[in-house]
């Protein structure tokens, strides 16, 4: 289909302190229903969205972090996390949720969705998109 466009969603905000992270996730899921080529990137405080073990019982907010695990089912499987952002925040990929997707072309083999990339690699990925939505 020729009208499939490359959509990039840029996540730069931490979860819970503001509504950006949750709203972005809603937009991504809605957008995924339109069969576009979707890429997500997490930079700056956005990397905190993907940390494991959220327990929001004490702050009276919905814990939306389990929803990230559903992205693979929506064919959202290109998720890039900037290495420099992780390092500045004392995080490694092991602190993040293990997000996977199943590859239909390889007998539903389970593959990792998250790739840690450098700033320059990310710049290249971002430059190859048709539409960039930044939150």
């Amino acid at each position: 289909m020729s009208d499939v466009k490359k959509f990039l969603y840029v996540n730069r905000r931490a979860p819970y302190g503001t509504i950006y992270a949750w709203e972005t996730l809603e937009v991504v899921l809605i957008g995924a229903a339109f069969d576009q080529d979707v890429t997500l990137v997490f930079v700056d405080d956005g990397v905190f969205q993907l940390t494991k073990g959220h327990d929001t019982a004490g702050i009276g907010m919905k814990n939306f972090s389990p929803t990230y695990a559903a992205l693979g089912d929506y064919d959202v499987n290109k998720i890039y996390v900037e290495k420099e952002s992780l390092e500045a925040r004392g995080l490694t990929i092991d602190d993040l949720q293990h997000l996977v997707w199943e590859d239909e072309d390889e007998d539903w083999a389970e593959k990792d969705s998250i790739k840690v990339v450098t700033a320059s690699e990310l710049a290249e990925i971002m430059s190859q998109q048709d539409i960039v939505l930044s939150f």
Partner: protein
Amino acid sequence: MTMLHTVNKSPFEKDSLNSCLRLSEDGSSILLIEDAIYAALEGTAASDSIKDAMKTKKVYALQDDINARGVKDKVMDGVEQVDYAGFVTLVTEHDTVQSWV
């Protein structure tokens, strides 16, 4: 006059924490809440400024905000975690409160 300072913005996104640290007196208390709890984590670009502040000031962080963000295992030594009741107690124990919103 004893002062309690609250900070609620991520140290990686806003300069509120630095302003608070620069403009608070020795002996005052600093309570990190909401996205500011990220300042209490070990091994970050903001860790050193908190460690430096803890030499002369008392630093607290709201436990519920830490738990919500999944980072409870990364909070640095010396930062005292308080719950909401502890937050209220801190407010009552100090003469004034400044919110670095």
